[in-house]
């Protein structure tokens, strides 16, 4: 009997996973989790920028805009 690759999705009647895409979401959708490695434009209107916070030492007072008068 030929074995069919299904990315470990063994439930009867469950949809087969396309190769190269891992199911992550709770709803079982085919989804890519965004990480720092995705930095840059991932669609024409979506951009990924990884953040690595650097401590401000000593902490500095936040400059806040005064509330508008009236």
């Amino acid at each position, binding site marked *: 009997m030929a074995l069919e690759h299904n990315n470990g999705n063994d439930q009867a009647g469950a949809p087969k996973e396309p190769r190269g895409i891992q199911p992550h979401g709770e709803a079982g959708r085919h989804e890519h989790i965004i990480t720092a490695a995705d930095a840059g434009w991932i*669609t024409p*209107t979506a951009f990924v920028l990884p953040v690595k916070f650097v401590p401000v030492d000593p902490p500095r007072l936040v400059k806040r805009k005064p509330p508008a008068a009236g």
Partner: protein
Amino acid sequence: MPDSSFDGKLAPYKPLPQCKAFLICERVGVDAVTGQFNLHRIVNFLSFQQFPAESPPLAAYFQLYDGIGQYDLSMELRDLADDTSVAAEIFSHLDFPERLVKMELVLPIDSLRLPRVGRYEIAILFDGREVATQFIDAEDDNGPGT
């Protein structure tokens, strides 16, 4: 008397982008079929057994529009107990291709170093000007009275 503020020496005013959504979550995924974003487990507070604490990796998701051209982008982590900036990240820049395009911005955050229990604020700034903020609470996991 003529108004000297219109003598041409001031930099032209560039409007800031409008922020329509700013959410902090555990992770952001993009649907391989539709290209739509999925936000997983929106985070309003973090619990730790001891402080200072390091958060697990997080992700910030933004929807922005009405930006014009290029902006210098930065982010701050603020301790609201004394209204100080305790951590900062300077990015290079972000370019808005068209003014009326709604842009989505995903910022995977390595971790947040939180010195003590309390309320913190994450702020995103364009050209040094604050565009949006979001609170996050750091809680003591040992329960009240400990």
